[in-house]
């Protein structure tokens, strides 16, 4: 009887320690998850900022200015354009 009780006591202690370690592990994993989620959020923010930057650099007025002034481009005169009709494509 005493031996059985001792066995139970050891089992209880082992279980208790198990609960403590798994709780600890769970919290560590949770923090890791939390960290990664935060990183995901930050990357999302960065994506938005890059998109904003892209559309700011790519505004039509800026493109036209660079094309005309820096690259010396101009709209071709109608007489100098040649239209090549593509078979089967209407546009």
């Amino acid at each position, binding site marked *: 009887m005493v031996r059985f009780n001792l066995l139970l006591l050891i089992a209880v202690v082992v279980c208790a320690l198990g609960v403590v370690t798994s709780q600890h592990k769970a*919290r560590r994993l*949770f*923090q890791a998850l*939390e960290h990664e989620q935060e990183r995901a959020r930050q990357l999302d*923010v960065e994506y*938005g*900022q890059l*998109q*904003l930057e*892209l*559309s*700011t650099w*790519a*505004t*039509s*007025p800026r493109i*036209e200015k660079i094309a005309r002034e820096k690259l010396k481009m101009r709209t071709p005169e*109608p*007489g*100098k*354009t*040649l*239209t*090549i*009709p593509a*078979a089967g494509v209407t*546009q």
Partner: protein
Amino acid sequence: MINFKGARAHKFAESPLLKLRLPAWRSRMIGMLILGGFAILIGRSFYLQVLHNEFLQEKGESRYRRDLEISASRGRIADRHGDVLAISTPMKSVWAIPAEARLTPEQTKQLAALLEMDAKELARRLASDKSFVFLQRQLPPEIGDKVAALKLPGIGQDREYRRYYPAGEMTAHMVGFTGVDDKGLEGVELAFQSQLLGHPGSRSVIKDRRGQIVEDVGSIKPPQDGKDIRLALDSKIQYLAYTHLKQAVADNKAKAGGAVVIDVKTGEILALANWPTYNPNNRERLSGAQLRNRAVTDTFEPGSTLKPFSVALALEDGKVRFDSIIDCAPGRLTIGTATISDAHPHGPLTVAQVIQKSSNVGAAKIAATLTPQQMWEMFDAVGFGQISRLGFPGEVGGRVRPWKSWRPIEQATMSYGHGISVSLLQLARAYTVFAREGDLIPLSLTRVDATPPSTPVFSQQTAREMRAMLEMAVQPGGTAPRAQIPGYRVAGKTGTAYKLEGGQYAKKYVASFVGFAPASDPRLVVAIMIDEPGGLQHYGGDVAGPTFASLMGGALRTLGIPPDTPFPTPKNLTVARAEREAL
């Protein structure tokens, strides 16, 4: 042993006090009082722990539990190619829990410098007895990172959003802007508010001593980001519309102007520009005139641009044929007490020439063959007097009075666009009837994948005849030879209307041009309106015509629509022909 002199010494057990007989109720009462005290303590603890435990529970939880709001961003607005027109990016707001924020004067100074605040003001806020105070809002994320790097106790940060409009004033009226709390105030921001709006979520967490989240408690409400809106707008065409309109207003010393580009096949609004405009990123010193989305909210008497509609109705009804002769001499027509006159007197004209030369007398005579009810029904069918229900704020339906109250002179003036008012957007839409095969298509602000059903107004035959007549108006002998585009066949109509001021026609004009191209298979409708041109010219053909040509030409090139007529240079003519034969 202590010996008191003068007092007889005796043993404790012999104390005379013990010999006193006390009443029994006294000891019982003490017992009862002690018991009663216990009972009160138990009762109180029962009350605190079981009956009214919210308070203590709350106080306890507030030591470790935090409710966090998870912010959701507002949806993006993009043009048809996915170029962003409006986007929210996070900013930081810095807050403090004053009870935990015990900063040294040095730290306070550092923080104040980063937040660009007065150090005294910051100290005053930190000394507040509130449990939470905002220190600064809408900070750039870099500043937020610097504040975080200071690792100050009791100072935290939240994400906030700020809306940016990369295209700025170019698309201001179309996209609109938002006010505080992500509330759309103008344009698409308002029209699609419910879809764009994000719904923030929330979660309760347990935080440890270092402020790290340890565990979620309770349920998590996930945030819902707003939906992205893909507009029908084409940024390149919008840019063309905006620059050409701006140029036209400046060249003609005009007060204002509007331009609309519509895709004939789908009813999508490819561009919508107004002048004056504003920069939605910086809305200080905004005036009502800048804010007005004229093409949608302002109606005007369109003038001659309305002639094709009554003439088409007469054609449809078999009252006239395109080659019927209408006598427009001597350029004046008296109905009742009023006289209608032409800008340039004409002799006998065919119906086609009435459109080509824009004769008021001719249009009035053709309209006289119709009944008021017929005309009203046609105006209604092409969408005049109706709100197009795009969702734009302040959209107007214009004014078409009920036909029963029309007098003959009014019917005559309405045939050439006076006594009736429309918005530029309505006018552009109505012209899709001629650009298509006589049917009217609903307009759309957003990208359309499947062509929506259209409602027939005129027959195919009428639409084709009217297209041919409108093409003549742009050719030599018409009112708008300056609206020609090399390489493309163009059809369109000029309008020069007097402005109404206080019920009287003033010597101020609204010059307009509405047209479509390529005339062989129309793809785009472009409508231009110039308000009060103050230069030497005021006729629609001279003021709005060239703007139409450059805008339409640019838009057709942008969309890669092949020319439908040879370019007027002989060299190219042969090359193009040789090319076509080779294929």
